[in-house]
């Protein structure tokens, strides 16, 4: 590893540590309380609140996916691969993407359920951000890099500008693989959401001195949905054009 690569990796790791530290502080100190687990009779309401939040996360998830795609296209199509900005962003994304989703899930559960017992869209958005954005950006980047340079050159030689090349050649050639990345990311989110509900349920059961806890049906639905999205992403992977 040369010195500049080492430097970029160190910078990326420092930024990762800072983000985790901020997340810790945020989750521990926020005063916004919603669906707090208190006493008997609140169990069902609390789970309903969690479900409400999870449904509310769907549009946020869509926005995060679009954001990821925009970042990936910006990095690959506009930013020079030799620029320091590209190198740092690429390394940060690589680090966040390689962390297993279970780790994010456990962090999420620990900070939200165990430590702060608080739930808000902001905390969930942060969790989903780390689950969705790095993986989607990385998948999209790789597939954009895979577009045959000769196709781009042929289009440029006909007078196409950058936007035209992206619209006519890059997007049509990359959509199947981009969808694979998106479905994989959604599958990760659903699986973690299921884990989150199960642990919340246990916590609620424990705080109300209830000794039996049935896994809610929605958890099964979420896990099945995660499985379905994984299968769809595999199908797309097999059908992708290159």
């Amino acid at each position, binding site marked *: 590893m040369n010195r500049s690569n080492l430097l970029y990796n160190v910078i990326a790791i420092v930024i990762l540590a800072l983000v985790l530290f901020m997340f810790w502080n945020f989750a521990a100190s926020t005063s916004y309380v919603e669906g707090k687990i208190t006493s008997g009779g609140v169990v069902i309401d609390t789970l309903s609140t969690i479900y409400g939040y999870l449904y509310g996360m769907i549009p946020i998830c869509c926005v995060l996916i679009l954001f990821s795609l925009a970042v990936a296209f910006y990095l690959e199509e506009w930013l*020079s691969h030799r620029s320091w900005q590209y190198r740092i962003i690429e390394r940060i994304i690589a680090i966040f993407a390689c962390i297993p989703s279970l780790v994010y899930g456990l962090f999420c559960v620990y900070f939200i359920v165990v430590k702060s017992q608080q739930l808000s869209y902001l905390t969930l958005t942060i969790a989903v951000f780390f689950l969705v954005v790095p993986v989607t950006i990385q998948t999209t980047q790789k597939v954009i890099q895979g577009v045959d340079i*000769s*196709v*781009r*050159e*042929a289009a*440029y*030689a*006909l007078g196409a*500008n950058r936007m035209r090349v992206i619209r006519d050649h890059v997007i049509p050639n990359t959509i199947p693989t981009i969808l694979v990345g998106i479905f994989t990311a959604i599958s990760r989110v659903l699986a973690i959401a299921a884990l989150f509900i199960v642990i919340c349920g246990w916590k609620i059961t424990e705080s109300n001195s209830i000794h039996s806890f049935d896994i809610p049906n929605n958890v099964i639905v979420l896990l099945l949905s995660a499985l379905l999205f994984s299968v769809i992403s595999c199908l797309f992977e097999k059908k992708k054009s290159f």
Partner: protein
Amino acid sequence: MPQQNNIPILHISELNVWYGKNQVLKNLTFDVLSKQVTAFIGPSNSGKTTLVRCLNRLNDLSVDFRHTGKILFKGRDLYAPKINTSEVTKQIGMIFQKPIPFSKSIYDNVAYGARMDGMKDTIQLDDIVEDSLRKAHLWDEVCDNLKSSPDILSNGQQQQLCVARALAGNPEVLIFDEPCEQLDATETPKLEAIVQNLKTQYTLIFVTNKRRQAARVSDVAGFLYCGELVEFGQTEQIFTNPNDKRTEDYVTGRLG
């Protein structure tokens, strides 16, 4: 001897090109006259492709690319800061070594340039597609399969389709960068015939490392060696009475 037209459409002066620290073109100066075939010959890695990629600014895609000197197209500096690169590439089309049809139908491939200019009228588009395919000697073979994928075409036909696609954009200069490199012996003469027919309407630049092909198709030829334009002149003179020993060695097969 073809009729000579002495209007230079491209004027290249003191062109130096680097990729990173590696200088690949050294102080090139020459004119390309309109409605002629200008061939560039030379062994591999002599800078032929780099030269023609400078002419339609495709080298801009390379991060390492750096140049000095001037390239004037009809008197306008191609590398002037405010020049519209898309306009340049539209007027200076290019055919590559490998046929690169887009993942669209034959019709949509040819209509690509016209549609990019905002043309939507189907009758006009039909005319452009037919005219371009006729100029590329491909109309008779594909007129019943215009909506088919170019995958049904042979390698040579795909290259003809790329010629038709470039012609549909109505360029003034058409660059052929070793277009026969991946064609077989039966397909190469077809492409050479297309080049001969097109030179009455377009300015053609033909890059090849096949000496005989350059002698057959071109009116003017330049010999590039290690990034240097060793000799530039009438094809007949270059091949029969070269001024430079290296040119003589190359055309007689002793070099490269």
